[in-house]
């Protein structure tokens, strides 16, 4: 007998798909052909977008949801889940993706924000959402809104792993530090974090987020993926890192291999051989604060 979707139960279904992506690599793709290359290389899902983050960064202008024709083409070309990005706060773009049957919606700082004060009320949707976070407070604010997966923001399109590492360490360090607190201290910590007390207490008792916690933003090599997995990420997103490299097919397979075998340095070594040039990287201290995508959203 099918159940009518109460909020708690529909949340369980959303988190269920996020669980299925664990240990996998989610790859940014801009065409059905790229999506097929990603799937053939072993991607656990693909993320449809118009331009990869490094091109958005280079070209400027307003970055919006991907065109429908591209998303539909990608849905036809692959059987792995298809994700797509919407602008922060743009719930109408999200409704369009939901109607299109997109499997996961990324409310993403990589696109130009549509609302500087409000994120999408994600509980109202049947589609699951993933959101970026730099620390535990931000992660829990997104989960409170209904996000079924959290990823680090990192610094998308930079080819520089430093921000993803910072955000992973921050979120996981914040979680570990809750373990030392008494109940009333958790309440004041919740206030400092700007997160609901109930969720803070839940995280303290679980010792982890109540949804999967993935890494994103700056992953360019197999060793970058292995580093994120070692720091507690449960899967990785790779944006510009694959299709802006010299040999996308080979690099995609290599990052998949390193994500499965992150605990085996010889395997990460094997995956790292003969890949050709990685994408060009950015030194982040040369970036103006206003150019940092991670500063979008709260």
């Amino acid at each position: 007998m099918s159940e009518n979707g109460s909020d708690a139960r529909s949340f369980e279904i959303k988190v269920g798909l996020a669980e299925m992506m664990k240990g996998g690599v989610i790859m940014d793709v801009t065409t059905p052909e790229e999506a097929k290359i990603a799937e053939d290389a072993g991607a656990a899902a693909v993320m449809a977008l118009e331009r990869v983050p490094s091109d958005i960064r280079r070209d400027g202008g307003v970055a919006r949801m991907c065109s429908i024709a591209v998303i539909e083409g990608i849905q036809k070309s692959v059987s792995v889940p298809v994700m797509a990005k919407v602008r922060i706060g743009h719930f109408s773009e999200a409704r369009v993706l939901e109607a299109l049957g997109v499997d996961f919606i990324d409310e993403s700082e990589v696109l130009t924000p549509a609302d500087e004060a409000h994120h999408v009320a994600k509980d109202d949707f049947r589609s699951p959402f993933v959101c970026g976070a730099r620390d535990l407070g931000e992660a829990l604010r997104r989960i409170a809104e209904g996000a079924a997966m959290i990823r680090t923001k990192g610094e998308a399109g930079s080819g520089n792993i430093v921000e993803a590492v910072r955000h992973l360490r921050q979120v996981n360090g914040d979680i570990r530090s809750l373990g030392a607190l008494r109940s009333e201290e958790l309440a004041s910590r919740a206030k400092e974090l700007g997160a609901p007390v109930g969720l803070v207490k839940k995280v303290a008792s679980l010792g982890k987020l109540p949804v999967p916690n993935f890494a994103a933003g700056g992953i360019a090599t197999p060793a970058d993926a292995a580093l994120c997995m070692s720091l507690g990420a449960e899967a990785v997103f790779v944006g510009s890192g694959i299709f802006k490299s010299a040999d996308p097919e080979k690099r995609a397979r290599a990052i998949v291999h390193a994500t499965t075998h992150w605990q085996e340095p010889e395997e990460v070594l094997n995956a790292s051989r003969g890949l050709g040039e990685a994408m060009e990287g950015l030194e982040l201290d040369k970036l103006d604060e206003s150019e940092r995508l991670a500063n979008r959203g709260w």
Partner: protein
Amino acid sequence: MAQPDVGILAIQGDFEAHGRALAQLGARARPVLRSHEIAQLDALVLPGGESTTIAKGIARLGLGDALRAFADSGRPVLGTCAGAILLAKRAESPGTAHEPPPTLGVLDAVAQRNAYGTQVDSFAATVDGDAARGLEGLRCVFIRAPILAELGPGVEVLARVEGRPVLLREGNVMAATFHPELTDDGRVHALLLTG
């Protein structure tokens, strides 16, 4: 078996959730990625995840023979969702041009992938009243689930939802199109351990 040694294929997917479910039943559960590890196990789980991704990993790591040999040895095997697809004799992707992944062919059934639709069609449901003894009222979570069809004569249906088989057994091989590892009900994993 006092404390059976259960391996969970850890290429990709929710293998940790299976580990937790098995640990609660007192089994020693560990992730496996190598043929020699698989050969030593008392029981094997193929988890949920992406069947295409896991099938590519099986090919890349050359695990197909070890997995088939394990199933042929008569020791218990459980596949859930993507894992069930991989156990089947063949996978199909009805209504699409998607190329289905190669399967192990140790369960006499055909897996129709994503048969209920995309994620917005994922759902939870309770098994029909004709479930096998001990499985009454089992609640099942279906995520982009397959349907198992064209069941061979040796395949026993342990549970159905709305008339469709969701939990099957053929000898030592058991397949669930849902995710018993995502709920707190340990009855399906207990069946793997006790037969």
